[in-house]
């Protein structure tokens, strides 16, 4: 229903771009923000810096699973 109502709003052309209004503000925010199924990566439980994780791994005697990107994976710019 959410998708449909926004799709109705979106007869988008460069001459008529979409615009937010007070009545659809919440709908836009809900559409843009990720839902839980899109954020499964957060369920893994990621530490946010490598070196403290190395120190923790040494203390625990455990291996490290290291996910690294250009642009921090937890906040990619």
């Amino acid at each position: 229903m959410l998708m449909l109502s926004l799709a109705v709003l979106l007869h988008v052309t460069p001459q008529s771009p979409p615009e937010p209004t007070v009545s659809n503000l919440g709908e836009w925010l809900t559409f843009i923000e990720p839902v839980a199924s899109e954020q499964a990566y957060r369920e893994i439980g990621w530490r946010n810096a490598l070196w403290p994780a190395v120190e923790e791994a040494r203390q625990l005697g455990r291996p490290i699973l290291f996910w690294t990107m250009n642009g921090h994976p937890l906040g990619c710019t």
Partner: protein
Amino acid sequence: MVWSDSEIATLSREFVTVADEAYTLYPEHPEHLKRVQGTPAHEFFKRYGEAMPEGDWNHRGTKQGLYMIGPNGEYLEGKFAASGLPDDILKRMERALERWQKLRHQAGYANTPVPKVVTTLPARVAGKDFVLRVHSRDLPRGEGGQGRRFDPDKDLNANWGDFKKWAWNVNWLAVDRWRVLVPSSKQVEDVDAAFVTQLAREMLIDNVRGQAKTWSADAVKTAKLTMLGMPNYDVMKVMYRGEVELDNGQRSMKLKLLGDAVYDQAKRRFRKLRIVAIGLRAGSQGVSQREDDSQPSPIGFAINLYRPPESVDASGQQRKSGK
């Protein structure tokens, strides 16, 4: 796709899981590399990488990837630019844990259970007083096109390039001068222009599909935001309206902004603040992955004041006991 896989999520609990920025750990540019040489994190990662099988480390190139490492940099598994296919990653993790079982007995590692950690935000904004979280997403362009959501039932084993159909991204901005967002009267007022320009340059970037640079000062053609405060005893509701136009000759953005907030006048802090920015983007630059999508198309940003979960420390981490 990878982290939605339940078997991968289960195996990840055998590891100390960590995410970090590749370029600050192992830059490709020689001048930038000099700055990190000798630092513990860089040397640790380098030692591990040089022990990898040939072809899996990408010497001199990007080090983006997924790596499974022993506590003292021992190679277990991993690959630069590791595939987004869950089956491949699962096999690598299983091999890593097989190697780990041999290593831990040889080296006498304790293999203590890994405490659960709550994923929060990058260290660069952790512990800051006022942090905005910005989500970006392409808006719908018709049946089957961009701007839909990832569907785990259909998309779990999709091809890598298909991510563009449901791509979204998250960015964070710690703001010092946030009090300029608090109205001083019951009339419509302009929010400080320099502040709005900073927000536009650093938050309203097309990173939906990939990394994108912030805007230069001369790319800002318009950056206006007004606010209207409606006080009611200790609480003031605020409405924000604005517009932003950015153009650097290679990419552009033209957006309308609308938002609201609740400001606690007694505690002198925002209880909530949310702004949406909607409009058209165009062009391509760097690694934003818009080379095949440079024509004007709708984009949306959702900006929210971020409140970390309770008991998250200043580094942005929260630890719980047990698995």
